[in-house]
């Protein structure tokens, strides 16, 4: 390991003693939050570099340092912000939104892993654009509101707004590792004109009706989104593999059991999460029914759908962790029931992902 470090550094110096590798940092901090950085780059201020190895372990380099990636490490250059984005909290109300200002914190010395670094390792893949990140944040927000875990009702009062803010801040920190500095309701009417949207939708419906009239009745088949199973499955499993251990660690820290019953409940939860994590770590390959036996295409699709749903349950688990962190003793029963539901979903989906076919008793 040390040898390769030395070799890499040596190669870097021999090839270009002074010249920096090509890297366009101008987009950072405005439209991009993190960009893949080439080896040998001196990290420009005020950015930091995050290096992630194949196992998901990450380390940070401060600005001014020179990136020297070890074997198998990927490097990102991360700009701390601040960033601004607009989120629509409800899909059905596009003209009212939230203007959110947030930043990526310097590393928290108390935390064993930085959440944003974990986000980079497990979800980023390549560059993290601000718009893509805003879409993820909006999804997380919309789901919490739809489930009733956050409340933003019509004519929100100040008290309700403050409760929403503390929940939202914690959600963004726990799920993505960003700190929300400011969040205000805004009128998005000028940018997202609902009348124009509906107009376009009606026109599209008219277009859709005309050709359908020619080619007989359209078949009412079960709708399935088109997606590439191999990609989606790999992405979802990677997330589960990297995030479940960190999630378990955080759940262990978030609750200090008050009595014996709660302690048992907590332990049981962690034990089940551990088993799910084990199951994900030993997941059979998507395209094989058994060693050397290929799996039918539609079964692969089914398996990929289950991994996707498991990843969705993982998102819910992070959101629940955020609620656990700010909850007092009072709502713990309700939160543990939610945790039970989420873990049950994780168990069901990961088991279904393992199966090569749908067991007969489930079809009936």
């Amino acid at each position: 390991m040390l040898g390769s470090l030395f070799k890499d550094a040596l190669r870097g110096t021999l090839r270009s003693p002074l010249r920096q590798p090509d890297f366009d940092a101008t987009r950072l901090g405005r439209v991009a939050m993190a960009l893949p950085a080439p080896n040998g780059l001196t990290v420009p201020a005020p950015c930091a570099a995050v290096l992630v190895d194949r196992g998901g372990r990450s380390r940070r380099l401060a600005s001014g340092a020179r990136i020297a990636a070890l074997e198998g490490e990927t490097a990102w250059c991360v700009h701390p912000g601040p960033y601004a984005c607009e989120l629509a909290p409800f899909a059905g109300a596009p003209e009212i939104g939230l203007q959110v200002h947030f930043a990526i914190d310097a590393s928290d010395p108390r935390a064993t892993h930085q959440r944003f670094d974990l986000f980079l390792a497990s979800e980023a893949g390549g560059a993290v654009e601000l718009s893509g990140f805003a879409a993820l944040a909006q999804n997380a927000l919309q789901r919490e509101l739809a489930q009733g875990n956050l409340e933003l009702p019509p004519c929100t009062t100040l008290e309700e707004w403050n409760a929403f803010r503390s929940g939202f801040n914690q959600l963004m920190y726990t799920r993505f590792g960003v700190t929300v500095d400011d969040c205000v309701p805004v009128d998005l009417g000028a940018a997202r004109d609902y009348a124009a949207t509906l107009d376009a939708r009606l026109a599209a419906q008219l277009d859709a009706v005309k050709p359908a009239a020619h080619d007989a009745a359209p078949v009412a088949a079960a709708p399935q989104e088109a997606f590439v199973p191999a990609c989606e499955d790999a992405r979802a499993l990677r997330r589960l593999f990297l995030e479940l251990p960190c999630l378990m660690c955080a759940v262990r820290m978030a609750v200090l059991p008050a009595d014996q019953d709660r302690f048992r409940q907590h332990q049981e939860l962690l034990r089940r999460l551990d088993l799910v994590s084990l199951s994900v770590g030993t997941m059979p390959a998507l395209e094989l029914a058994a060693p050397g036996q290929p799996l039918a295409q539609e079964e692969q699709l089914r398996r990929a759908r289950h991994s996707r749903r498991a990843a969705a349950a993982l998102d819910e688990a992070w959101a629940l962790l955020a609620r656990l962190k700010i909850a007092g003793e009072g709502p713990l029963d309700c939160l543990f029931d939610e945790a039970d539901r989420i873990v049950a979903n994780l168990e069901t989906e990961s088991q279904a992902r393992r199966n090569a076919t749908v067991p007969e008793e489930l079809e009936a």
Partner: protein
Amino acid sequence: MNAPLTQATCRSVSLDGGTLTITATRRPRAGRADVKCSAPGAPAVAERMQQVVRLARHTEPRFDSRDQVVLSLDRAPGEGERDWELAAVLADRMVRGVIQLTEPVIANGWSDAWHLGRIDGRMLPKPAAGVLAGGVDGLPHLGALNGQPDPGAGISSARAWFPMHSGGDQDGLGWVEVSVRPLARAGQDDEDTISVPDLDAVRQSEVRAVLGGSRHFDGRGQGQWRTTVRFGESRFSGDSYQLALVMADRMARGREFLARGRVIATGASSAWHAGKVESVEALAPKCALIAREAAAGDRVLLPKEWEAALPQGLREELRARGASLACVERIGII
């Protein structure tokens, strides 16, 4: 979530005039299928029922794999009949506590797009009063049970509820529905494009004035929309429906945060163009009515002037039930 029942029934009127009953029960899943359906002598119907229920569950935000729901039809429906589909979906939701309906339901409706929550129509030609009828003129999508706009539709409509109080047996919640579709030609006088088919001329002009004023306050929505306003019960008096009307209009135009349940509002104003909400009559009976009717997720909006005189414990009672209450001085963002 409120403690869900372990059994629920929902009925549907079949085309031959009889009744179909769908019974749903819930039990721990224990490794079995999530939904199990049966219909006597019609395995194809049972299969379709399982498909319908699974598709409709895609529109729910909360997925729970711990329970199994068993649905059964009491007799086989007629050949090609599909109106039981809505009843199956509702029974499945009721038994899991996803929706809470206070009275027994008779529902008729079918859909080719259950995964979007749409209800395409019904086969029953003239549903009797009290039948929850699917389709554009009845219940167009599942969210409409709570008055919410369909986020994927071309015409946006939303409902809000208001307490109707006359001191008689007719007391209850009435609803007002606002549907808007984009108006291609701008520049028309806004009030011409608002139609209120159910009401007399005086009330029609009142509704137009209210919407005109509140849209003026809003700063948007003028000359943009062709609007239709419908009332569930057209025989009512007073002007306390106005706040509900304004809220439904704002929700339909996508300019208001949404409650998970219904919006129940009472309030009037002499100055909607300033967004002000003013007090109305009959505080005590209306509060009692609301306390009786509110369900989980509902949002209750009352005039600010009522705040000091609210009955003791109303707030707490609503909160315990999962509903929330706010006394508002004006509409719009905080």
